[in-house]
C-alpha cells in the first residue's frame, strides 16, 4: 500500500519502520517500509491481512486517508561494509528484505537474496528484487509451488558451507529468523535479524517491545529493530508475541460481525 507522506519519505532509510493507526479508536501497529520516494513524497509498505487493523487497511480505497502515520522509527540497517551478504526475507519480511538489499547493493555490498513464502500466492516483490543489481535471487516456497521447495534455511546453509558469504541479514517471522540465526551460527557468519516484537508507541516510552539480547533487555523500537541474531533470545520473543492471541480472536470476531469478509 502506498501513502502520501512527504515529510516521512524525505527521511526513511532501509530497515526503519512506521507506526500507523487507521482510524480513531484504532490500534497502533508497526509496519516496515518497503519503498519510498523522497522526490515524489510517498511511502509504501506491505502487510498481510491477519487481524482487524490490517483488514481495515485492506478496505481503504485510493484517496482515503489514514488517521496517523508516525515515522521513520528505529535505527536504519547498517550497510556498506558487509562484503558478500545473504539477505533472507520470509513472508511480509520481503518488504524489508527488498529495501535492505537495495541499500546494501547501492552501498557496494555483494548481495544474494533468499526470498521465501509458504506458497506462490504469498510471494511478493519477486519482480522488484530481480530488477536490483544483486548477485542472485533464490526463491523458496514451502510447498514448492514456485521456485525451489523447502525452507529458506536450506540455501542459506549451502551459502555458508561453500564459504560464499561473509554476513547475513534475516527478516520475517520470528521462528524463521531463529532458524536462520541457528544455521549461520554453526559457520560463525555474523547475522543481523530485524525483530518484530509487539509495540505500542514505537518511541521507547512503554517497553512493550522489550527483547533480550546477549542477556540484556533492549527496547526493540529504539535500540532496534536490528540485533545480533546469535545473541537474541528467540524463545522469549516467540512467547511475548503470543500475549494477545486470545484478544485478537475476540477483536476479529467482533469485527467480522460487522464486515462481509472472512477473517
Amino acid at each position, binding site marked *: 500500500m502506498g501513502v502520501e507522506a512527504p*515529510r*516521512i519519505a524525505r*527521511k526513511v532509510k532501509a530497515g526503519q519502520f512506521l507506526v500507523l*493507526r487507521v482510524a480513531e*479508536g*484504532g*490500534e*497502533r501497529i508497526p509496519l516496515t517500509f518497503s519503498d519510498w520516494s523522497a522526490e515524489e513524497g510517498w511511502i509504501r509498505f506491505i502487510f498481510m491481512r491477519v487481524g*482487524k*487493523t490490517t483488514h481495515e487497511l485492506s478496505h481503504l480505497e485510493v484517496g482515503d486517508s489514514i*488517521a*496517523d*502515520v*508516525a*515515522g*521513520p*522509527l528505529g535505527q536504519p540497517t547498517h550497510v556498506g561494509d558487509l562484503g558478500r551478504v545473504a539477505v533472507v526475507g520470509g513472508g511480509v519480511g520481503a518488504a524489508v528484505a527488498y529495501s535492505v538489499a537495495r541499500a546494501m547493493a547501492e552501498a557496494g555490498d555483494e548481495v544474494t537474496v533468499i526470498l521465501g513464502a509458504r506458497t506462490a500466492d504469498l510471494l511478493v516483490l519477486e519482480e522488484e528484487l530481480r530488477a536490483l543489481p544483486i548477485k542472485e535471487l533464490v526463491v523458496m516456497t514451502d510447498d514448492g509451488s514456485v521456485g525451489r521447495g523447502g525452507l529458506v534455511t536450506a540455501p542459506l546453509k549451502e551459502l555458508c558451507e561453500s564459504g560464499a558469504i561473509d554476513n547475513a541479514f534475516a527478516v520475517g517471522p520470528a521462528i524463521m529468523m531463529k532458524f536462520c540465526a541457528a544455521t549461520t551460527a554453526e559457520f560463525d557468519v555474523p547475522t543481523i535479524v530485524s525483530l518484530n516484537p509487539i509495540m*505500542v*508507541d514505537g*518511541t*521507547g*516510552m*512503554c*517497553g*512493550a517491545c*522489550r*527483547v*533480550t539480547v546477549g542477556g540484556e*533487555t533492549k*527496547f526493540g523500537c*529504539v535500540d532496534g529493530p536490528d540485533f545480533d541474531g546469535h545473541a537474541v533470545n528467540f524463545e*522469549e520473543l516467540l*512467547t*511475548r508475541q*503470543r*500475549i*494477545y492471541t486470545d*484478544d*485478537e480472536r*475476540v*477483536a476479529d470476531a*467482533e*469485527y467480522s460481525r460487522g464486515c462481509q469478509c472472512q477473517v
Partner: protein
Amino acid sequence: MPGVAENQPAEKPRHKPSRAPRTPMPEREAAERATDFDEVAIGYSQDDAIAEAMRCLQCRNPTCIDGCPVNIDIKSFIGHIIEGNWADGVAVLKERNALPAVCGRVCPQEEQCEAACVLAKKGEPVAIGRLERYLGDFDLACDIESRCVPELAPSSGFRVAVVGSGPAGLAAAGELARLGHAVTIFESLHAPGGVLSYGIPEFRLPKSIVNAEIEMLETAGVEIVLDSVIGQIETVEELMAPSEKGGSGYDAVFLGLGAGLPVFMGIPGENLNGVYSANEFLTRVNLMRAFDFPHADTPVWRGRKVAVVGGGNVAMDAARTAKRLGAEEVFLVYRRTEDEMPARREEVHHAREEGIEFKMLCSPSEITGREGWVTGLVATRMELGEADDSGRRSPVCVLGSEFPIECDTVIMAVGTRANPMLDRAAPDIETTRRGYILTDEEGATSVPGVFAGGDIVTGAATVILAMGAGKRSARAIDAWLREGKPGA
C-alpha cells in the same frame, strides 16, 4: 500596580473568616467508582466553594504563596471567590498557571501551598487545590469566547518550535503565543498532552479537561503537529536550520520531552508475559482506550491478581486502573512504609477505599512464571535504615526473609528515565550523567536558542514544576529572541 501603595482595605467590608471545618470534597462511593473510569471527585458546588473560601484568613502576609512552586497569588484568587467574582479569580490563577483545572486536580497540595497555610498548623488548611479546581472548571464551562484568554501581544515575526506536548510544552507554547511568537508544537504520539493524556487516568483527570485546555491553546494560534518524533523525522538542528538549507527555519526551540523511558528492576522474570511497565499498562488503557476493548482495538491483559511495584502516583494510578479492569485482588508492593510513599495523600486514601491492599516493607527479588506467563513474585522483607539524601529512611533487605506472593500480573512503577532518543534529536546538547538536559535557571541549554524544561531537565517530578519551567523558559526565549539572539 507595582510601586503604588496597596489599596486601602477599608474600602471593602472586613472579611470575617468562618471557623467551619474544611469543606469535604464530594466524591462518588468507592464501590461504585471502582468499577468504572468516571471521575472520582465530583468537585465543589458554588456553595462549597464559597464556604471553603470563607475559611481563608486572608492573612496580611500570606505564607501559602511561597508554598506554591509558581507563586500563584492564592490570597487574591480566594478573595475573588469570597466576593463571587469568578472570572477575576480565574484571571489571577491564569497569570501564573496556564492549566488550573488540571493542577487543581493533580498537584500535591498537601506538600505545597496547603502545607504552608497558617491553618495547617491546626491540621485543617484551606483546601486551596479544590478551590483552584473550582475556578478552573468554571472557566472551562464557559463558552470559548467568554473564557479567560490572555491578550496576545502583536506578532513578533519569530517562529518557535516546542517539542513535546506535556505540561512543560503546553505552558511554554501558551506563554510564547501570548508574547507574540508563532508557535508549533511537535508531538510524537497521536494525541497531545503528554502524561496528562497517556499516564494520568480518566478517573482522576478527565481527558475532556485536558482537551479543553489544548483547544484554548489552539484558539490562541498554537499549531500542534502530531505523530512527529523529533530525532527521527527531524533533528533540533534541522528545525533551526534556515529553509535555504533544507531546514524548518525556527528561531528557537523548547524541549519538553518528559522522562518517558520506563525503568525495570533488572530482576529475573521481568520479560515474562503479564509483566508491564506502568507506562505501557496506563498507555494501553488511557491513550489507547483498552478499557473499551473490543470496541477500541488495543487489548490489555486483565489479570485477576495484580501486583503493582512502587509507591508513587504512578503506582496508585496503575493499581486503581487494574481494579477498574476487573481484577479481584490488587496489591502494592513497596519497599518503605506508607509514610514515605511519594504519592499524593488523596490518591493513597482513595486507593485504600477502593480495596487496594498495601504490602509495605518488601521488594520483589524475582518474578516467577510458568510457560512464559507470570505466576507470582518472590519478595524480600525490608527494614528502614538511616535517612538518605532525600531525607527518607532507606530500606535495607532482611537477609533470608524471602517469601512468595501469588499473582498473574506484575506492573512495574519504579520510575522513568530520559529517553535516549534525545541523543538523536540533539546530539550536541549537554546532559547530566543520568541523561537529563543541563540548563541554567531560565532553561537555556548548552546550544544557543535551545531551551528545555520539565521532567527532561529535573527527572520525573510534577505537573506544576514542569509547567512553571515551561513558562519560565518561554520568557527567556522571548528575551533571547528580542535581544537579537546573542551568539547567533
